[in-house]
């Protein structure tokens, strides 16, 4: 791998939301960071604004912890990283760990980023190719571009698949003609 290909940017997660197949559930979780510079913390990470970012302020690995109140199905993680604006602050190696609590985490994904320039979709599946069900997700930044110490992360979104009613008796319809009759509003 002489010249690693740059990580291509993924689609805007908003498009994903509009399909109705997934739902953003970051608001149902408690977010915490291993360290941050004042004014560049969780709020900036979750404010839907790509201009603001989280800047870590400690030693590696830098951690983002997402803890849910109950065991939640998570389908995809979306991280926005931009090499052009963050350069040495851009993460290059990210590890995703899941578990029940801090002592119980297990890595399920590790990804390498090469000069990313947009959204990165991280599908989280278990061994059976189904979305994982977990209490906690930890995103660890193990390394940055150009060996930078601290990292910038601009936005993170967590998606859960939209479940049909439990038994699946009301199928997912795709055409309007069917969907009209699905429910009373």
């Amino acid at each position: 791998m002489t010249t690693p290909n740059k990580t291509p940017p993924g689609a805007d997660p908003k498009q994903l939301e509009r399909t109705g197949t997934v739902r953003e559930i970051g608001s149902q979780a408690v977010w915490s960071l291993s360290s941050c510079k004042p004014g560049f913390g969780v709020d900036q990470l979750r404010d839907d604004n790509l201009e603001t970012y989280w800047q870590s302020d400690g030693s590696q690995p830098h951690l983002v912890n997402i803890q849910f109140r109950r065991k939640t199905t998570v389908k995809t993680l979306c991280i926005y990283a931009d090499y052009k604006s963050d350069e040495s602050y851009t993460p290059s190696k990210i590890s995703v760990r899941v578990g029940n609590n801090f002592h119980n985490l297990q890595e399920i994904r590790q990804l390498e980023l090469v000069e990313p320039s947009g959204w990165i979709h991280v599908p989280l599946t278990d061994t059976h190719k189904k979305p994982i069900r977990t209490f906690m997700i930890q995103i660890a930044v193990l390394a940055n571009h150009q060996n930078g110490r601290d990292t910038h992360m601009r936005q993170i979104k967590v998606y859960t698949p939209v479940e049909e009613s439990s038994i699946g008796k009301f199928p997912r319809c795709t055409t309007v003609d069917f969907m009209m009759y699905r429910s009373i509003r």
Partner: protein
Amino acid sequence: MTVLQEPVQAAIWQALNHYAYRDAVFLAERLYAEVHSEEALFLLATCYYRSGKAYKAYRLLKGHSCTTPQCKYLLAKCCVDLSKLAEGEQILSGGVLNKQKSHDDIVMEFGDSACFTLSLLGHVYCKTDRLAKGSECYQKSLSLNPFLWSPFESLCEIGEKPDPDQTFKLTSLQNFSSCLPNTCTTVVSNHNISHRQPESVLMETPQDTIELNRINLESSNSKYSSLNSDSSMSYIDSAVISSDSVPLGSGTAILSKQAQNKPKTGRSLLGGPAALSPLTPSFGILPLETPSPGDGSYLQNYTNSSSVIDVPSTGAPSKKTVSRISQAGTKSVFSQSGNSREVTPVLVAQTQSSGPQTSTTPQVLSPTIAAPPNALPRRSSRLFTSDSSTTKENSKKLKMKFPPKIPNRKTKSKTNKGGITQPNLNDSLEITKLDSSIISEGKISTVAPQIQAFTLQKAAAEGLMSLLRDMGKGYLALCSYNCKEAINILSHLPSHHYNTGWVLCQIGRAYFELAEYMQAERIFSEVRRIENYRVEGMEIYSTTLWHLQKDVALSVLSKDLTDMDKNSPEAWCAAGNCFSLQREHDIAIKFFQRAIQVDPNYAYAYTLLGHEFVLTEELDKALACFRNAIRVNPRHYNAWYGLGMIYYKQEKFSLAEMHFQKALDINPQSSVLLCHIGVVQHALKKSEKALDTLNKAINIDPKNPLCKFHRASVLFANEKYKVSLGARGSLEIPVAGNGVPWELNVHRSPWGAPGLAGRAWDMGSICFGKCLPHQGGIKCFDWNKIWGRQVLLFKLLF
């Protein structure tokens, strides 16, 4: 002291009639400071209320004793507006704890405004969960005054089934004439205040009005001599008074000029053509030779609800001009008859003059004309009648005193008129006398024109009643969710009424309840075209667009509505629906909460909010929202459905079934509901019942594909299939509607068996095949391997 009030009161009324609330409030405050009478208090409170400050009126009236019915009514109205229902009830009927007055007591006490009082009381009862009492009040209110629509509407909404034929009819002349003045006086105020209020205004003047009417009557006669003398007499009055009140006198002079100038133009507009046109409205204007609005004689005649009966006087314009010119005094007389103007515009409005433009001008004219000169006649009457003019006097009592007080001359003419009108009107009502005198005026004193006039008037009211009957039937059908019948009835209304916002919105809603969203959308877009200021009913339109997933139209609608009226819950519901369609549930939630803030008594906002919470999986909040919706409106079947859905999601199937059943009790025609019930019953293992329910659903609405799908899945789950058709398993089935290919996707097969797949082509043939389990989608599709099972399965489907 009472003499001092007249010009001030007149000025205040003039300001109110011109919506100049700052002026009115200021003057009323001065008046009240000067004279702490209950009438002045009432006037001030009215000014506050009309200027939109119900809280001011409330505090003012609370702080002082209110004994007159009009004050009590206004105070109760303020209480209800400020959501102080217990207090309102107490004022109107003695409260929950004290001994309550019966309806008859209320009728006695409030007299002519009893219908409005009872309607308000009914509203209070319904809001406090006493539906039986509420409906009683509404019924009584309607029996007193069949011109009221809102008690009828409220009765339909709480689930009662009032009979439109019984409700909207003119039972007796007495009722007819009693409603009219009452309603008309209240319509003047636009706030349904007791008619006593204008009566109090008129109080000093009814004698004058009669006098004036008599004078007017005579003036339109060819008996100009009497006219002269009368007018001269009234002229003397004005002369006497005018010395003290120069501006008012000049007002009348100006008036006379106005009256002089107007007639010609008005006449041509309201004249023959109206009578001859085949499209003459069934009420609103009476198709006779109506004198022009500005015409003095017309004005007099006009006092009777646009019954332009003025046959004799309109005989020859020349005659009119003669009468006009003959004395300036007549003008002042006419202007004095402005007292009755208070009555006139209302009467016209009451009978819903949808007539030509000019019919409204007299209304506008008359208040202007009325206000300044009011002072004159009042004073003149006072000069004659010393003890009849206390401000708070019961109008009836006053009228009783009427005949004796009027000087002989007037009495004579009055009884004369009375004699004429006896055969026509019930004379137990003084106002009727007033009307009759008004009716009879402008006539050569023969009986025939009066009767003719009266029958015309009655015909106009009948026209309205028959319209209300039809609309009532339609609305009742809609509220009982007999949507097809409602559409039928409402479609048969005359086209000029059909093409109005209210009717079309009801029809649109009927289609919506039938789940025929395309039709509903068509109708609602028509409403938007003809009445783009209408917000009531637009929430249903927004939900229709949500179902049809027309995001552009929905966002245009919501933008327009929110720009137009930020204080209407419908606008925010539309905005919320728009964002919900875009899957931005948090923003949608925000907008629905805003709708609730704007109007906490709007059930649909709670329901929509509940649906959003369900979509964001916050089921507890959703439960709370649906329950709130039911609290506000127990007949809101959407909220019952929402609760059922939540319990279904939580797999509490029996609870789900119970709630769906409640929703079904309210709306038995909904195939979607039946479909859901069928599914739940199947989940409860009551498959036979499930199949019955689903069959019923399919019968009601064959276009609903999901019912068939669920029926098929129930049958499949019960493995009720037998070997059937031949190898070719395709059935030609017309696809309901568009012929657009649709896909039926069942890739998860909960029964562990291979799922179904189907694909329709444009001509509508549907082929089913066995779906290989792994692929989990519609793609795989092995036509050659049609198995008996599957064939039968889709045979069952259709």
